[in-house]
C-alpha cells in the first residue's frame, strides 16, 4: 500500500479531506456534550445541553416532523397521479409540463418565498398558519417526487401491462392499484425519503416564511446560533444530526435501488 510516493500522496490527500470535513463536525458535537466549552473537555461531559435544547426547541422538532409528514402526503397525492399521467402520455406537452414542475429546483428558495409572500401575504389566517410553510415545502419538493416516480415508470412498458390487466377484468382503478403503484414502489420510496429529508432540512424558503410561533428545525438552529450559548447551539446540531443522518442514509439506499430498476 505504501510502496510508491503516489500512493502515499493519494492517501494523504484523502485523509486531509476527511479531516477537513469531520473535525468541525466532531468538535461541534463534542461542544454539545461538554459541561463548559471554554474550560474544555476537562470540565466533563454532560447531556444537560441536549435536554436544554429539548426544553427550548421541542416545538420546532415536532413542527418539522409534522411538516415533513404533511409534505410527504401532499407530494404523494399530487405527484403519483402526475407522474402516472406524464408516463402514460409521453409527448411534447408532457415534456413542457415536466419542465414546469421542475422549475422550483432552479429558482432560489428565497425568490420562491418572496413570490408566495407577495401573493398570499395579505391573507392573515393563511399567512400565520403552518400550512403556509407547507405550501412552500410542497412546491420545492414536488419535482423530486415526480421525477423519481417517473423514471421508474418510464423504464417499463406500462401501457401493455395495464392492457394485460384490463383483459383479465381489472377496472382502471384496479389497474392503478394492483399494477401501477406496486411497480412504481421503488421510485415512490426513493422520492418519499428525498421529500422528507429535504423538508426537514429546508432553510432558505422556510426562514422567509416562518413566524415567531412557527420555527422549524433549521430555523430554530439559526435562532439558537444567534441567541443561545455555544453549548446549546452545538447540542442542537447534534439533535439535528441524529434526525437527519439516518434519513440521508436510507435515501441513498432507496435511490440506488430505484436507479437499478430504472436501468
Amino acid at each position, binding site marked *: 500500500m505504501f510502496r510508491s510516493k503516489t500512493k502515499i500522496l493519494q492517501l494523504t490527500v484523502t485523509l486531509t479531506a476527511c479531516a477537513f470535513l469531520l473535525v468541525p463536525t466532531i468538535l461541534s458535537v463534542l461542544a454539545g456534550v461538554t459541561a463548559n466549552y471554554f474550560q474544555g473537555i476537562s470540565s466533563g461531559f454532560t447531556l444537560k445541553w441536549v435536554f436544554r435544547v429539548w426544553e427550548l426547541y421541542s416545538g420546532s422538532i415536532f413542527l418539522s416532523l409534522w411538516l415533513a409528514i404533511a409534505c410527504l402526503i401532499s407530494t404523494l397525492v399530487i405527484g403519483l397521479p402526475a407522474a402516472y399521467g406524464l408516463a402514460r402520455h409521453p409527448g411534447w406537452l408532457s415534456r413542457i409540463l415536466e419542465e414546469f414542475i421542475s422549475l422550483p429546483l432552479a429558482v432560489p428558495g428565497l425568490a420562491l418565498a418572496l413570490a408566495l409572500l407577495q401573493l398570499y401575504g395579505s391573507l392573515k389566517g393563511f399567512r400565520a398558519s403552518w400550512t403556509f410553510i407547507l405550501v412552500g415545502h410542497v412546491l420545492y419538493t414536488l419535482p423530486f417526487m415526480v421525477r423519481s416516480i417517473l423514471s421508474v415508470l418510464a423504464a417499463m*412498458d406500462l401501457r401493455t*401491462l395495464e392492457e*394485460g390487466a*384490463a*383483459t*383479465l*377484468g*381489472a377496472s382502471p382503478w384496479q389497474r392503478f392499484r394492483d*399494477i401501477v403503484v406496486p*411497480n412504481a414502489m421503488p421510485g415512490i420510496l426513493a422520492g418519499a425519503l428525498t421529500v422528507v429529508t429535504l423538508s426537514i432540512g429546508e432553510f432558505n424558503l422556510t426562514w422567509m416564511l416562518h413566524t415567531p410561533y412557527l420555527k422549524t428545525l433549521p430555523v430554530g438552529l439559526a435562532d439558537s446560533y444567534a441567541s443561545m450559548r455555544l453549548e446549546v447551539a452545538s447540542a442542537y446540531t447534534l439533535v439535528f444530526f441524529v434526525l437527519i443522518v439516518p434519513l440521508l442514509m436510507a435515501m441513498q439506499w432507496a435511490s440506488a435501488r430505484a436507479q437499478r430498476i430504472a436501468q
Partner: protein
Amino acid sequence: MTLRLTNTAKTYPDGTRALMPTELTVDTGEVVSLLGPSGCGKTTLLRIIAGLETPDPGGEIWFDDDNVTAQPVERRNVGMVFQSYALFPNMSVRANIGYGLKMQKLPKPEIEARVTEVLEMCQLEKFSHRSIAALSGGQRQRVALARAIAPRPRLLLLDEPLSALDAALREALRDELAILLHKFQITAIFVTHDQDEAMAIADRVAVMSDGSVVQSGTPEELYRNPTSAFVAGFVGNAMHLKGTSDGKSLTLTGGVLPLDRDGAGQDIFVRAEDVQIDPSGPLQGQVETVTFLGTHYRVGIKGIMPDIVTSIFPGQNAPRTGEVVKVSIKPETLMLLPKSGVGK
C-alpha cells in the same frame, strides 16, 4: 363461443386507414389465424376484438348473441397473450395466473384450485413461486398463456405469441401451443406474420393485406387454391412465371410451356416443388445456385425467365452450378390467377 364482426373498420386520428371494413366469423372452438405482413392491420383487428381499440362507427362486434361493441375491455371476458407477454413483474407466477380469477371475485379456495389446475396443464408447477424475472422466454410464454386461460375466457386472443423467442425454441413451442389450444377447446384467434406458424396452429387461416382479409380458408385450401397473387406469394412462396401467354401455351425466355387451361390475361404462378429438373423438359436454363438442405436441394436456375426459377431437387445427384439443365412443369400444377399489378 361464436365471434361475428360486421363492417368493422379502423381509421386513426391522422387519417391512416389501418383496417378496411371487414366481416369475420369465428365458430365455437375454432382456432383462426390472422396471417399477413407487418402493417397489414392484423394486430389492429385483434385489438378491436379485445376492446383495446374502438372501431369506426358502423362496425359491430358480437360474442354469440351479445353485442359487445360498446363494452370496455375489462367486461368482455377475453383472454389475451401479448407479444411481450405483459406479465406483472410485481407478482409471482401463481399470482399472475390468479389475477384474472381474483378480478372475478371468486372465493380463495376456488382460485387456488383453478390456478393449480392451469399450472399442471401448462407444466408450470415447478415454477409457481418464482418471480417473473427468474423465468426463461419459453416459460414466460407458457405463463402468459396460463394467465389468459385461467379465468375461462369466452375467446382467447394471441398477438404474435412466439415472435419473442429464438428460432429453435419457436419451432418446439409452436407444436406445443397447437396441442394446448386444442386441449383447451376454446375459440381462439392467433395473429402471426409467419406462414408456417399459422399453418401449424390454425384450423383456418385468414390472410390479410393492406387492411383487409384477402382470402380465408383451411391451410390446405390456401396453399392449393389461392385466389390472388398475394396469397399465392405469401403462403408457400409461389413464383410468378413472367412470360406471354396466348390461350394454349406460355412463352418464356427459356422455352414454351403448354397450358391445360386458357391462360390469356392471367398471371401464372408455380411452386418450387412443382418445378422438376427433367432431361426431356421443354424449358432450358443454367444452374445459378445449389443449396443443400438435408432432405433436398434447392436449385436456382437462370435463363428461364428474367428472375431466377427455384426448383426443389429431392434426389442424390444434384446438378452443379453452371450446368445447363432442362426443366419441366406439369400444366396442372400451374396456378392461373387474375392479373394484379402488385403480385409478389
